[in-house]
């Protein structure tokens, strides 16, 4: 067709870096996490960074489900909490076993003689790990199929997932066997390793760092795969995808399940790193915080969510030490500014600056030499850059 003049392919800053930059990026991240951080940070600060890495693992999943898949995952605290409480139950049982007690310490204080039946499977490390890895994903599959097959609209999905996170937090508060609102804490060992030993705590940090790298690699592969392209298509035009023979519900469920699984793993790592899990770590507030870091970092990109989550968590812990009440407002304000003025997050800042003063991208095409003979519907639309 004569109107299609060959155009220089419009280059965009890729949301997913190519192999060379990725290799360099992974190498750099590995050096920072495995060599620099342990060398320059105190044990306390390293533990803090480990906690931020857990949030980053959650954020990587949100980046996939929300940034790429358009699902506003406002309730990741649900899956984070599942992973965390399952791990916490196992650690309490293992501690009791090490000390030769029949029940975990907080239960014996409460006068409980026997471990409740529903706790017992988590005495096994294998069962615990399997449940951590599989249960959040299984719940996400069920929930996702229920919601997406019925074509529940985005806002209702967000509200529903948030309500479930709130429900989990409320339920846990009422569970004396889960420590109620105090949560579960004072863990002494982690799969046989003494948690008071700084060397073991460093090992734990390395596990979190390694997990984060794997998670980022998985998300990168998904984003670059055909599935990743389809996911973006579903995000932008769900109905259109149906007419090409796909069921968008299945496409969304995959990303949602991956995000849930990551959140569960992060929760399980959070428990030994931080030493406590309580309802306030799994309810609405943490669920929203996860999202804020992702939005600020740039939800559509590979690294934006990860760096955003770490940055926000770091800012929170350093600012809330000095201005505890101001932080909440600062976080809210930052969120509004970014979402309002920089929807792509900080990751899009470079692109925005680069585009300044350059003509908008468009394909050169000859203008029609005469108007269409009959204008039947809307007039010809100008292609928008």
């Amino acid at each position: 067709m004569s109107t299609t003049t060959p155009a220089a392919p419009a280059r965009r800053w890729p949301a997913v870096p190519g192999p060379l930059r990725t290799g360099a990026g992974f190498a750099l991240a590995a050096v920072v996490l495995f060599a620099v951080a342990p060398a320059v940070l105190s044990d306390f600060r390293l533990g803090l960074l480990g906690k931020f890495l857990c949030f980053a693992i959650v954020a990587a999943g949100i980046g996939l489900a929300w940034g790429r898949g358009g699902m506003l995952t406002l309730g990741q605290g649900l899956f984070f909490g599942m992973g965390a409480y399952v791990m916490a139950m196992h650690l309490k049982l293992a501690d009791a076993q090490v000390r030769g007690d029949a029940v975990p310490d907080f239960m014996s204080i409460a006068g409980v003689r026997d471990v409740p039946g529903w706790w017992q499977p988590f005495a096994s490390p294998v069962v615990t790990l399997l449940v951590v890895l599989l249960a959040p994903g299984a719940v996400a599959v069920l929930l996702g199929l229920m919601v997406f097959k019925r074509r529940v609209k985005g806002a209702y999905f967000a509200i529903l997932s948030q309500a479930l996170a709130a429900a989990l937090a409320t339920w846990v508060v009422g569970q004396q066997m889960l420590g109620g609102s105090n949560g579960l804490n004072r863990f002494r060992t982690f799969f046989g390793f003494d948690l008071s030993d700084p060397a073991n705590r460093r090992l734990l940090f390395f596990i979190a760092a390694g997990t984060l790298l794997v998670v980022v690699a998985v998300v990168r592969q998904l984003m670059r795969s055909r599935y990743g392209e389809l996911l973006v298509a579903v995000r932008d035009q769900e109905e259109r995808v149906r007419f090409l023979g796909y069921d968008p519900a299945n496409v969304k469920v995959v990303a949602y399940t991956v995000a849930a699984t990551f959140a569960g793993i992060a929760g399980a790592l959070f428990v030994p790193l931080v030493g406590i899990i309580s309802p306030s770590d799994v309810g609405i507030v943490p669920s929203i915080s996860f999202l804020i870091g992702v939005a600020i970092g740039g939800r559509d990109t590979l690294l934006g969510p990860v760096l955003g989550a770490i940055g926000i968590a770091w800012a929170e812990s350093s600012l809330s030490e000095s201005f505890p009440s101001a932080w909440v407002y600062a976080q809210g304000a930052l969120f509004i500014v970014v979402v309002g003025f920089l929807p792509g997050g900080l990751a899009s800042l470079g692109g925005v600056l680069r585009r300044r003063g350059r003509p908008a991208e468009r394909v050169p095409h000859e203008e029609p030499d005469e108007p269409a003979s009959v204008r039947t519907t809307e007039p010809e639309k100008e292609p928008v850059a």
Partner: protein
Amino acid sequence: MSTHTPSTRTERDPLFGGNAGMGSEYLEVRGLSVTFDGFKAVQDVDLTLLQGDLRFLIGPNGAGKTTVIDAITGLVPATGKVNKSGTQLLGRKTHQIARSGVGRTFQTASVFEELTVLQNLDIAAGAGRSPWTMLRRRPGVEPRIAEVLDTIGLASLAEVRAGILAHGQKQWLEIGMLLVGNADVLLLDEPVAGMSKEEREQTGQLLRRIGAERTVVVVEHDMDFMRQFATSVTVLARGRVIAEGSVAEVQADPRVQEVYLGTTAAAEYTAEIGGA
């Protein structure tokens, strides 16, 4: 575009009544009705579409043309029967109907703007891919996609983001997306609306070529365009089929002239058939 002659296909032109004889693919619509809150948008429509027949579906605005396509593709609930070469379509889900080989385009082009032309086509070609294939990267350009890129004249724009294509190019991309998906029934809703004369001409040629071995229905208002490319025509007014036949037959039909000219006789006719 006349320079692109697909080498692998037998060159047959679309014909009135189809060009494939017995045993050809078909789409048979019987008694199709669609009601919106008591308003009968489509009433008792019968259509028999044969492979190799380039059928135009015309009619004034609001006649129900888009609704007929919506009903066939499962977008709106309908009563009646839609039979595609032996398979009943009505009542099945949209994506299942699409998988059975019925493709459609929309009045306003709806390509995936954030993705490149090639990515758009690759997605359209892939509804049957295995999970394993989906989780890996696109290795290169599949031959059938390369062929379609040539057919729709977008080969040089394969790596361009679809959102920045010109209006006509988006419509061609949409048609290409149906071709790579191996749809053999193509329902095109006003594919040349808003196109320049030259683009219309090119699109008409494209429709003729792809219509040779598929069942193609084109919704269109433009009578010149219809005269030039249709092999058969169905005229819809107020949700009913009022005429059907060759271009000449339909043009000679007084009721069609009435509908298009808006005479008093047309009003009488619609009163006679009980239109609202």
